[in-house]
């Protein structure tokens, strides 16, 4: 037997089911986001941790020019080191049949016997290379898929100017290339970067590394910090051209994965809070109205002996039922969403298998969040129930007190018809509720802005980087710093119309115990292709002496213009000197230090500094230029402007529509939930006066003005607030996501604002259409018979 009060609860729930449903959907959206982010985060973390552990992913990584094999023995002795592994690795240019463009490749040695100690390779198809056969290699799976390479197919690596045939005998995955991206790229392009593992003895021969190595990985004992090992390793490698060791946190694949997971965790906190906050507000509005309508019932219940506690619970239960229903729906939706999101992640992050993690903790977190929202939402209504004295409640409520609204007092009165005055006075009588409605609707607009403007900013970054900073068609990097001969060699290639030398040196900048290994770039003040441009789009002016730092680098090192840094070159005779930071530049990709070319040459004692070149080419001669570059022994890597732009466009096409659709859906849920409930409450509060007006001869359209005028004003007020809010949220998000790899400029296209505004207006139209249906069925006779 259900107690009578609970039966009343069920019937109340049923009576206002459409409002309850609208709120439940808002709750469900928030919970879905919460649950999906939590599941994704946990699944990625578990998948990553198990993969790293099983394949012994390193904790510290370093490269050097050439280290004799006997040094390997002392690696184990470094502080905190558990195990060490040495390899021969090389960046090469690949010639893939069917592709005219040179492709960047990385060759990595496999032990001649046994498997790697660290950074284990997971074979996905085929077999391991036969150590006796120089041409056999296994390739990373995505590259094989990207080029449609089958076992037995061949590609060519250009090693020291010789075309070396590589025969694919297997495909593989590696924890080092979960996110397989070539240095300097923003997005992984499976066709532009290939990793090949082959027998060490052949790779060593090809690169003059017999009896030596150039790549070191260390794993640390549990709990050991990487810094002491890094410091000792750098000291150990210094005589052998050490290029500076990095901890796992700076390993590029790991960094991208970590960055994504940090974003997920942010989403798991922020977005559900917005949704549940709005749900709490809506519950508050609906419940307060319910208490107002049920004044007399509450008085009767109190009169016959129900306690304040029981009645307070009665109304809280309504909120709890609505939000728990929404919560359950949200948990189910979140589980589905997480599967879709993880699928998408697996497109970019490659693991041998995905471990989907689903815990009761997620459900508990979701239900607790729902409970908090419902209690928050019910609090004000329950307070008014408790406060209502039984005798007082038996009398009808006093008429609402109104006053002339601010706009009218400002002298606009004579332009306002009576229905418009009704709208304005009603809004100004409950300013807090109007403000909350505005904020609620504004959040929906801001979500739209955020989603779309993040794309705008990313697009702007690409445009700035590839149309303003790097205006070359091709960027070539050399194995070793080269002299003028390389410049002339490039300039003489038919089809190359412009060559700009890129001078630079690898160096470590040190300020106290903070340090970073970066490239110092020397750029000609009159550079036309590769330039140094700040976020203000203006090329940076160089002075003769100082060092210009990326602002982000200055922040990381804790220096400002005027401060002095210790600069240690990591090439040539490895000179060291103190230099003054003369300025910082708001560049957007990577972090660099910049110097005037002559100053750099003096610092490096005249050794060769040309580390690469920027080329302008004749589009008609593209294929012959590519062919020539593939055959040049000095060329270690070739970056193609058009390929980077294409992979960006593919990324946008693949993600833009999904992201926009999902955000549009969420924004609409919020907008509809807020506007629909506002309209329904308004209709309930004013059905009597609207019916009176109908009786007096006002048409449906005319009374519609009173009801929908209010919605239109709230929406119109909310749109600019929402656009501003979205812009600030974007600014906050971009600042939070500012990294050493890239910083996105804060831009929003006018279309983004138009799009967000339009979505909110459509949501208002939908809500109005649904409420209009109810308005048309207003019972004129019934409403007039009784006092409210």
């Amino acid at each position, binding site marked *: 037997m259900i107690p009578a009060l609970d039966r009343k609860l069920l019937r109340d729930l049923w009576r206002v089911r459409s409002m309850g449903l609208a709120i439940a959907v808002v709750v469900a959206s928030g919970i879905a986001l919460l649950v999906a982010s939590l599941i994704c985060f946990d699944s990625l973390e578990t998948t990553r941790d198990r993969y790293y552990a099983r394949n012994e992913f390193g904790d510290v990584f370093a490269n050097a020019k050439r280290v004799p094999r006997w040094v390997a023995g002392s690696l184990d002795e470094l502080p905190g080191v558990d195990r060490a592994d040495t390899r021969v690795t090389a960046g090469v240019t690949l010639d893939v049949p069917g592709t005219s463009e040179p492709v960047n490749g990385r060759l990595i040695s496999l032990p001649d016997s046994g498997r790697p100690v660290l950074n284990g390779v997971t074979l996905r198809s085929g077999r391991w290379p036969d150590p006796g056969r120089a041409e056999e290699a296994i390739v990373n799976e995505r590259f094989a898929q990207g080029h449609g390479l089958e076992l037995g197919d061949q590609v060519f690596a250009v090693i020291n100017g010789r075309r070396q045939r590589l025969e694919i005998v297997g495909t593989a995955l590696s924890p080092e290339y979960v996110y397989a991206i070539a240095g300097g790229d923003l997005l992984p392009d499976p066709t532009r970067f290939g990793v090949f593992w082959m027998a060490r003895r052949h790779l060593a021969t090809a690169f003059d590394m017999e009896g030596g190595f150039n790549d070191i990985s260390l794993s640390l004992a549990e709990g050991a910090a990487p810094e002491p090992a890094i410091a000792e390793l750098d000291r150990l490698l210094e005589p052998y051209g050490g290029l500076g060791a990095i901890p796992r946190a700076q390993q590029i694949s790991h960094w991208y994965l970590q960055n994504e997971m940090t974003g997920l965790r942010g989403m798991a906190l922020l977005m559900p809070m917005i949704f549940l906050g709005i749900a709490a507000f809506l519950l508050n509005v609906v419940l307060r109205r319910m208490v107002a309508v049920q004044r007399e019932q509450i008085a009767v219940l109190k009169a016959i002996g129900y306690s304040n506690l029981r009645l307070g619970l009665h109304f809280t239960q309504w909120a709890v039922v609505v939000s728990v229903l929404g919560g359950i729906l949200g948990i189910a939706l979140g589980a589905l969403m997480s599967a879709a999101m993880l699928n998408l992640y697996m497109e970019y992050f490659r693991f041998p298998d995905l471990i989907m993690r689903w815990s009761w903790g997620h459900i508990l977190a979701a239900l607790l969040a729902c409970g908090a929202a419902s209690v928050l939402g019910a609090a004000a209504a329950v307070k008014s129930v408790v406060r209502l004295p039984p005798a007082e409640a038996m009398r009808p409520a006093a008429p609402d007190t109104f006053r002339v609204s601010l706009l009218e007092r400002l002298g606009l009165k004579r332009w306002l018809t*009576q229905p418009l005055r009704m709208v304005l006075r009603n809004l100004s009588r409950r300013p807090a509720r109007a403000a909350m409605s505005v904020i609620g609707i504004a959040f929906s607009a801001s979500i739209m802005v955020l989603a779309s403007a993040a794309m705008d900013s990313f697009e702007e970054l690409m445009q700035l980087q590839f149309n303003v900073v790097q205006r070359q068609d091709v960027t070539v990097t050399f194995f070793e710093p080269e002299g003028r001969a390389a410049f002339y060699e490039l300039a003489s290639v038919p089809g190359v119309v412009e060559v700009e030398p890129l001078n630079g040196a690898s160096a470590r900048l040190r300020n106290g115990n903070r340090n970073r290994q970066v490239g110092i770039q020397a750029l000609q003040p009159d550079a036309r292709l590769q330039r140094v441009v700040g976020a203000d789009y203006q090329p940076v002016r160089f002075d003769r002496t100082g060092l210009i730092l990326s602002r982000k680098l200055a922040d990381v090192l804790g220096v400002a213009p005027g401060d002095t840094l210790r600069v240690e070159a990591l090439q040539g005779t490895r000179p060291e000197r103190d230099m003054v930071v003369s300025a910082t530049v708001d560049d957007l990709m990577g972090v660099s230090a910049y110097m005037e070319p002559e100053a750099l040459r003096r610092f490096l004692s005249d050794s060769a500094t040309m580390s690469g070149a920027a080329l302008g080419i004749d589009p008609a001669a593209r294929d012959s230029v590519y062919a020539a570059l593939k055959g040049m022994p000095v060329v270690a890597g070739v970056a193609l402007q058009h390929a980077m732009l294409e992979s960006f466009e593919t990324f946008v096409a693949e993600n833009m529509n999904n992201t926009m659709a999902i955000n549009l859906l969420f924004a609409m849920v919020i907008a509809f939930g807020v506007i629909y409930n506002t309209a329904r409450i308004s209709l309930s509060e004013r059905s009597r006066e609207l019916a*009176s007006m109908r009786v007096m*001869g006002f048409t449906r359209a005319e009374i519609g003005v009173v009801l929908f005028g209010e919605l239109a004003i709230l929406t119109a007020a909310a749109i600019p607030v929402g656009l501003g809010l979205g812009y600030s949220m974007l600014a906050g998000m971009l600042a939070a996501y500012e990294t050493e790899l890239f910083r996105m400029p804060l831009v929003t296209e006018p279309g983004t604002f138009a799009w967000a505004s339009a979505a909110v207006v459509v949501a208002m139209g939908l809500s109005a259409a649904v409420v209009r249906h109810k308005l048309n069925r207003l019972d004129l006779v019934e409403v*007039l018979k009784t006092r409210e």
Partner: protein
Amino acid sequence: MNGNGSGANGGLAVSMRDVTKVYQMGEVEVHALRGVSVDLEVGGFLVLLGPSGSGKSTLLNILGGLDVPTSGQVLYRGQDLTRADEGELTRYRRRRVGFVFQFYNLIPSLNARENVELVTEISDDPLPAQEALDIVGLADRSSHFPSQMSGGEQQRVAIARAIAKRPDILLCDEPTGALDITTGIQVLEALERVNRDYGATTAIITHNAAIATIADRVVSLADGRISRQHVNETRAAASTIQW
């Protein structure tokens, strides 16, 4: 006024013939009106008397174009209201009918004058709002909001609102039902004056038999039928009523 003691000046404003109204209440059929024929003479003052449930509110709603009969005919100046659609009924109410309700039904967010202007803004040839308030004796209360007025004052604002459009027909549903005798008489006096000075055909429904003495004609309803109908030889002044 004409010589036969009736305020009616000839012709029919509304004519109802054999009107029935059946409501379906759940599984029960409620016969609210069972073949009622009533005429409203132009300029006349009619009181419809009857206990609750007698069908008088249904009759008033049909007269006012808020409801349509199940069968029978309702003619307004020859126009058949039973065949009118939603839009035509809205226009009928807007142009021809003024309503006064038991619970006033003022718009709380509008002050007295604005409540009247609500109607004058959508009428073709209205009285100035201030004049309408003057007629009901509330010229000095025009900027008060409903929450600042007594029940009698609110009801007089409602009358001012009803007459401001210069309606052909003024329909009042228990206009004094929620008022004490003093304020009730003020309200009736206002209705009397509007009928006399502006010639609005007036119909009041009430269960208060004392009010019947101020009418030209009294129709009593019981159980959905007309039980009694008579013409007052002389109309009593509202100020003389006792209840």
